[in-house]
């Protein structure tokens, strides 16, 4: 299974759209994209995971790494996810306490701005 990546700007936020499986083979590409976006000065990221079918520990590591990078610039990395299968992975790994997880991109942006 492949991984498709896309990104666009909206409301001072860079939205990263991920589709497919984030595993040991595909995660490096997501890592590169996140690093690239942060290096270009995007410190508020929203990763839209609605079309993600699976992520393993390497994929989680990449998201955690991205979060650490934006936090170093007082930034944010929030997730959009409503799929039970993916939410379960975040719950088991205790990462629901680390990431903001929202139902829509707009929701994620609004919540950040109201903080």
């Amino acid at each position, binding site marked *: 299974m492949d991984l498709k990546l896309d990104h666009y700007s909206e409301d001072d936020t860079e939205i990263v759209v991920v589709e497919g499986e984030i595993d040991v083979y595909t995660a490096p590409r997501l890592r590169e994209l996140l690093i690239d976006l942060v290096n270009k000065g995007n410190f508020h990221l929203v990763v839209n995971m609605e079309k993600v079918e699976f992520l393993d*520990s390497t994929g989680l*590591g990449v998201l*955690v790494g991205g979060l*650490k990078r934006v936090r170093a610039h007082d930034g944010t990395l929030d997730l959009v996810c409503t799929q039970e299968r993916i939410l379960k992975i975040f719950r088991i790994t*205790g990462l629901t306490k680390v990431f903001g997880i929202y139902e829509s991109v707009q929701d994620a942006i609004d919540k950040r701005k109201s903080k």
Partner: protein
Amino acid sequence: MAVTDSSAARPEYAGPAPGEAAVTAEASAVAESVEILLIEDDPQDAFLVEELLADTNLDATITWVDTLRAARDRLPGFRGCVLLDLNLPDAGGMELLREVLTTAESAAVVVLTGLNDEHEGAAAVAAGAQDYLVKGQVDGALLARSLRYSIERQRSDENARQLREAEMYARENMRLERGLLPQVLLDRSPLTHRSFYRPGRKRALVGGDFFDAVEKNGTTHVIIGDVSGHGPDEAALGVNLRIAWRALVVGGVREEELLPALEEILTTERAQDEMYATLCQVSLDTGSETLRIRLFGHPPPLVLSDGIEEVAATPRPPLGVFPDSDLSVDEWPFPRGATLLLYTDGLVDAYDGAPPDRLEVGGLRRILQDIRDRGASTVDLPERLVDEAERRNGGPLQDDVAMLLLTHGTGP
């Protein structure tokens, strides 16, 4: 034939020698193409090499440079044949040869020497060149043959080298696995154990799964963990963590301080900032029937008694993500006769039938139930479990699987 400076020699190469025609016909059947990097400062010699090769059946592409400096751009990763004059304006002799051999690791190197320095050619071959040719004594057929043989020799040398490297790598993996999966220290514990490890489909990528169990001062501590990602860094960190944890336990560090100390070790020892470890630590006092469980981003253990229960411990983020001070501990009943199953996520990440469905903890529980219903003994559970997971996955699992089964006996 001569890669020579003598114009008198040239007519000899104007056409193929009688013996050469046959060689040509034979070789054209194989239609080889060879990339040649000619490092030669004398334009006449360089011209001669081109002329000689033009007359052979060798389909040669020649790139000519006249200094080592110019060659340096082309040597890394070059896989053809280097024809090297050992007397260049900016380098020479064995030092020059060594640089070429180390920079162009995969190339065949044939050295060109003058008539008076033939000894240099022999020394060059001893130092790692595939062959040497004496200028003025070479014809097209000899040159072509030398190039072909040199490339063949280089290829077989490289195959042998790769084989050697693969063997060393496999031994390295074995050493790492030994470090990750130790002999547990349970002589005085009420727990008896059965451990299991099966490497994933990508054998070359040794994972960072580890476990250990140590009885100390009347309490048995057990740990299973998994460093995120695959590769030597991850496996090495797994070994570090496992040994550090054992040292902390054996050294008598208090139970509630074990994992904060381990997290500190992780954050100082990891190669990249984003590396983390999921783990589960279980502690049992001898004589007690209650487990103390600390879960850090790890899938929950299962308790097998009459039924199969998933231990409902509070999931906390993995170790090394964002160290916090949440030191709460969960308790769970563990009666004598019951068995605790600790495992790594390679098992629950297996496909359940077809993508995108994964086994998950629920699937694991169902498989276990099924295997037990068919009368499997506890000792056989790990193999049976992984076999069934592989069947559903449609082949070997992608990730490594480590499992630790601990049965609460009457014990010493």
